[in-house]
């Protein structure tokens, strides 16, 4: 028979235990929803064995914002090495892995497609489950990864360049969106104001740095919706107020302090966001606050929220920086929790750029 001519790669043992997702379940996770290419191995849903993050900031810097086509091209190039590195870093091979998790949405469709295609392919070869994870739900789990005192229920503030929302996390898979931005995400407002002020991309960290040198009470920028009864925020008016302030000053020939503008703008964001978060926590009747997402790095927000939580007797949990920005470890943690609930996806699953949290 001609079969003998076919060369077969080294035989591998396929028999593995699937079903009882015990303490040691090993999940290989992939996150490519925006401009970070990340792969991680998470053990038992809480222990990070590796978490490789390849940032594309340098690629998008010259355009002053994320260019979707450039992001997806970069994911195709960066993801395979990132997966290899994540396995090497955890001292495992593909054949040790029990399940593959990847971000299904929300995010940029071209970017999501790359991660989902690779995750499903690996799952097909290994004959292990594929778990499609909601990126926002992933952020909620970033808090559980590092801090063993962090538990659900809690109120989580997810705040990043793409999202700003307050979520009542009642338990695994049980969430209520309490409020969010009605226009720009907080990080987006930081980036837009920074670009207007001529600061380098990404602008958020630059504004944070400058605001330490300025007077946060120098300019009374508006605190939109701060005293409304709900938990929604709005940042588009604040951004416009900054632009108008600078234009008016220039028209009058006045010299403006960029440090004062940065500090006053940041203080306006912090005041609104802290007030809403505390109000939401009280309304939800919980005593734990999770801060997650890229803007959790902002020193003003961290400090403002820490002081307010202490005053009200809430415990505040902020993950380390590499878990605040988009990363695959949080997708692995969330994917593990979903596996335990029997929530897996098929190999024909498609990403959804607008996937809602609930």
């Amino acid at each position, binding site marked *: 028979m001609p079969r003998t001519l*076919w060369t077969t790669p080294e035989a591998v043992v396929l028999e593995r235990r699937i079903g009882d997702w015990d303490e040691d379940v090993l999940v290989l996770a992939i996150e490519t929803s925006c401009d970070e290419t990340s792969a991680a191995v998470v053990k038992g849903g809480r222990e990070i064995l590796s978490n490789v993050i390849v940032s594309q900031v340098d690629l998008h810097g010259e355009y002053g914002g994320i260019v979707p086509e450039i992001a997806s091209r970069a994911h195709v190039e960066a993801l395979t090495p990132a997966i290899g590195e994540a396995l090497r870093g955890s001292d495992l091979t593909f054949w040790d892995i029990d399940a593959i998790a990847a971000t299904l949405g929300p995010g940029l469709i071209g970017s999501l497609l790359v991660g989902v295609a690779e995750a499903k392919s690996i799952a097909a070869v290994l004959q292990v489950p594929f778990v499609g994870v909601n990126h926002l739900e992933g952020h909620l789990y970033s808090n559980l990864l590092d801090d063993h005192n962090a538990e659900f229920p809690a109120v989580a503030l997810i705040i990043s360049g793409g999202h700003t929302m307050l979520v009542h996390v009642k338990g695994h898979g049980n969430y209520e969106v309490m409020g969010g931005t009605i226009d720009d995400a907080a990080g987006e407002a930081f980036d837009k104001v920074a670009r207007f002020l001529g600061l380098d991309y990404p602008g958020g960290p630059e504004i944070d740095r400058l605001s330490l040198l300025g007077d946060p009470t120098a300019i009374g920028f508006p605190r939109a919706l701060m005293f409304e009864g709900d938990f929604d925020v709005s940042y588009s008016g604040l951004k416009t107020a900054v632009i108008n302030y600078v234009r008016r000053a220039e028209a009058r020939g006045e010299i403006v302090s960029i440090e004062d503008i940065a500090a006053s703008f940041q203080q306006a964001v912090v005041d609104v966001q802290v007030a809403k978060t505390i109000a939401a926590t009280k309304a939800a009747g919980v005593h734990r606050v999770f801060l997650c997402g890229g803007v959790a790095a902002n020193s003003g927000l961290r400090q403002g929220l820490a002081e307010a939580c202490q005053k009200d007797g809430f415990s505040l949990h902020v993950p380390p920086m590499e878990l605040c920005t988009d990363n695959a470890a949080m997708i692995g943690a969330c994917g593990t929790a979903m596996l335990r609930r029997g929530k897996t996806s098929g190999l024909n699953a498609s990403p959804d750029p607008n996937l809602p949290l609930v």
Partner: protein
Amino acid sequence: MLVLGIETSTPQASVAIGSEQGVIASAMVSRGASYNEFLLPAIRFCLDEAGLDYRNLGGVAVSLGPGLFTGMRVGVATAKALAQALSVPICGMPSLDLVAYEVRYSSKTICVALDARRGEVFTAFYRPSPGGIQRMSPYGIEKPEQLAIGLGSRIEDVLLVGNGALLYREEFEDLGSVVELGTMSHAFPHADALVELTVPRMFREDFDSLYDLKPMYLRHSAKRIEWERIRGSRSA
């Protein structure tokens, strides 16, 4: 050696499994399912029908385009992940070569024109050579009317194939009998040709680097084109 081929650079997506003895299973779809929904079930179908398993595969071949951005990305990402998880070699092939290879028995010069959208076509010229084809031009992207002018100025007869040739057929029909237009059955790159072309490369161990392999775009992202235009006009 069993090779899995993946071709998704045009609206006609296909997968095929074959060896030095030819293709033993393939699946193709021209419309309907998106690449991302089609690929893994189609590969599963081919493996099952041929009585094989992923572990029987000795290599992965993938079409690198040029073609539609989304298709190329899903195809290349899938191929890379399969090769990585299986620890087998990977080979990439340009989509235009695949179309030319299927009409290699012609004695004429072969010109492939694939639809690049936005009123342009991806092109390359080939001549038949013993056992295959030989490329005579760089891979390019141009407007169909420019291609027609180029074809009209050639002294030899040309066989013009590809969905781009058919889409803009009125541009080429005026050129008369010098240009023969291919039919719909040779209008798209196919995974069968990809497997046939790749098996010898696998035996020669002429592999591509798994980490470095990427699609052949031939076109910058729209944002970059716009940015270069603005920067160019500023510096001018």
